[in-house]
């Protein structure tokens, strides 16, 4: 087990890409993955997640920067010498071998004695819940079990420094996904491996990981706990990518103590206002946006009772979708569209207004969150 430090790391697939606007598949970054952490690497397809993972495992050599395991430079070490386990999107099993022989394969390749191997294989089979199936031919297994074997070939080595998962549950039956993910979580709690789990599915990322790393277009945008990512996304992409539906992002200007959307004033909290003034955002001309989670909006009835409330603004309801526990209400605020969640069964007033919470109304300058320490 090891901490992993990616030091000034960047990757270009070929030197000839240098002429492109952005030649990097992975923009230069500096990132530390702590020993024993369970990380999820979340981002849309093609954002560089797999590239990053392959650089850590050594399948790919970064075009710049270093990879450090516990401070030791492993950039030039082979995958085998790095002692990494990696589970791929599509299960890889050695067809002609049995389940037990598949699990023994990485140990045999490293020249271990047969008694040690037998003990390790038996232990791993128990870990995977596949006791008594050692003699089955790997080819005849279903996709779920094949993926378990792929995982098992990583777990069978006691000394792996990290286990990397590259969207490992893509081909797994939905009802088994939960079960396998829970098993992974248990294995992590018991053995404390450093785990990095690549996925484009936010549910998977948020349920598996202690810390989620959100990537887009070759850059790491934010690293945080699921709650941090949800409550205070540092980039509008994080806000829209995480959450279902994602955060509402509206173009705005900044004036005094509020974000102004098409002439309507959305009040901001004190810290944001101070930070915005400090950066001179009112006159700077940078592109400003306001981000509000649909979950933090409350639909109220418009009328005299809320007319004087500065937190409430009249909106037009343009559509309602039933999401089960909630209704998704599509609204128009000024010229811009947004959505809000409304409890299932509660009536939606004909003349509606929205109540905004200043603490959960976030201001973004050039897509980055405006905050006190930023």
């Amino acid at each position, binding site marked *: 087990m090891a901490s992993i430090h990616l030091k000034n790391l960047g990757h270009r697939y070929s030197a000839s890409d240098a002429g492109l606007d952005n030649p990097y598949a992975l923009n230069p970054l500096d990132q530390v993955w702590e020993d024993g952490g369970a990380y999820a690497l979340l981002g849309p397809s093609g954002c560089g997640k797999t590239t990053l993972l*392959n650089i850590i*495992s*050594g*399948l790919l050599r970064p075009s710049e920067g270093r990879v450090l395991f516990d401070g030791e430079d492993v950039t030039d070490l*082979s*995958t*085998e010498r790095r002692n*990494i*386990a*990696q589970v*791929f*999107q*599509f299960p*890889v099993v*050695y*067809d*002609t*071998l*049995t389940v037990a*022989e598949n699990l023994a*394969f*990485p140990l*045999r*390749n*490293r020249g271990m004695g047969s008694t040690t191997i037998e003990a390790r294989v038996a232990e791993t089979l128990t870990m995977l819940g596949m006791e008594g199936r050692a003699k089955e*031919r790997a080819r005849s297994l279903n996709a779920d079990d094949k993926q378990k074997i*792929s995982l098992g*070939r*990583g777990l069978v080595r006691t000394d792996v420094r990290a286990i990397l998962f590259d969207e490992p549950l893509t081909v797994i039956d939905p009802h088994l996904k939960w079960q396998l993910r829970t098993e992974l979580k248990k294995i992590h709690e018991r053995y404390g491996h450093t785990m990095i789990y690549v996925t484009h599915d936010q549910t998977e990322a948020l349920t598996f990981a202690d810390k989620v790393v959100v990537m887009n277009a070759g850059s790491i945008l934010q690293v945080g706990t699921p709650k941090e990512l949800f409550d205070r996304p540092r980039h509008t992409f994080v806000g829209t990518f995480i959450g279902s539906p994602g955060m509402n992002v509206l173009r705005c200007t900044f004036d005094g103590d509020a974000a102004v959307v098409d002439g309507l004033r959305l009040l901001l909290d004190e810290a944001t206002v101070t930070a915005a003034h400090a950066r001179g955002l009112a006159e700077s001309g940078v592109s400003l946006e306001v981000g509000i989670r649909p979950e933090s909006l409350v639909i109220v009835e418009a009328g005299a009772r809320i007319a004087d409330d500065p937190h409430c603004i009249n909106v037009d309801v343009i559509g309602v979708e039933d999401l089960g526990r909630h209704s998704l209400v599509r609204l128009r605020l000024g010229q811009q569209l947004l959505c809000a969640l409304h409890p299932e069964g509660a009536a939606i007033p004909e003349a509606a207004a929205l109540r905004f919470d200043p603490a959960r109304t976030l201001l973004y300058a050039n897509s980055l969150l405006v905050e006190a320490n930023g």
Partner: protein
Amino acid sequence: MKVQNNKAWLMVLPMLLLVAVSAIIPLMTVVNYSVQDTFGNNEFFWVGTEWFQEVLASERFHNALQRTLLFSALILAIEIPLGIAIALAMPRRGIAVSFCLVLMALPLLIPWNVVGTIWQVFGRVDIGLLGHGLASLGIDYNYTQNTLDAWVTLIIMDVWHWTSLVVLLCYSGLVSIPEVYYQAARIDGASRWAVFRFIQLPKIKRVLLIAVLLRFMDSFMIYTEPFVVTGGGPGNSTTFLSIDLVQMAVGQFDLGPAAAMSLIYFLIILLLSWVFYTVMTSLDNDAASEQGRH
């Protein structure tokens, strides 16, 4: 519901006719000859299995059969491993792929008798590049007089002509292996041999079976090339079953024994192909136990 009309038969009819004319009728003619004798004048006498017994007992047949078996065994022993090795060494991407594929396909495009002629001239001591070159190096090489030289020439010719087929078949199997298998093997610390044994070989096994069957049948039935190069000589040393058969049927006009020999020849090919198929498809079951013995 019972089918009321028999139109389907009309659809099958052209194919039936084609198969009848191209395969069944000629085959039955051979069967017919093999059980009869004739003294000309279109008079035939029933002789039963006499020709079969004669052929099976004849030394001439045994010798030709042994030569043919040896030839096929050598061809398979050389072309299959060589083909796999070349396929493994071929590039997987880039412009070099097309270049290699074209290069590999070239020998396959040459008609068999031309291949024979090329090598017949190539190996000649007086004017051939190979023969003359060897002679000027002081090596005593003459495929028209030395049995070993004749065999070496025929085998090198066949290897040159047909290894490409094995290469192309294996290559098609190899490129179909997803990259992730190789990545997993690196994670698992597999050696080059282990990668071949447990990833590549299992994946190319099916095409390899086809390659082995094709090369066996082709080499076992080889006629044109040795006929052109050596004519079956020196002596009878390169007289394979096919050459012997043609001499018997066309040269001596012994239709009865030739027909019986054709059928025996056919059955041997069928039998050996079945053996290859059975052995190679059951290899699966042994693979696992082999890993266990490591």
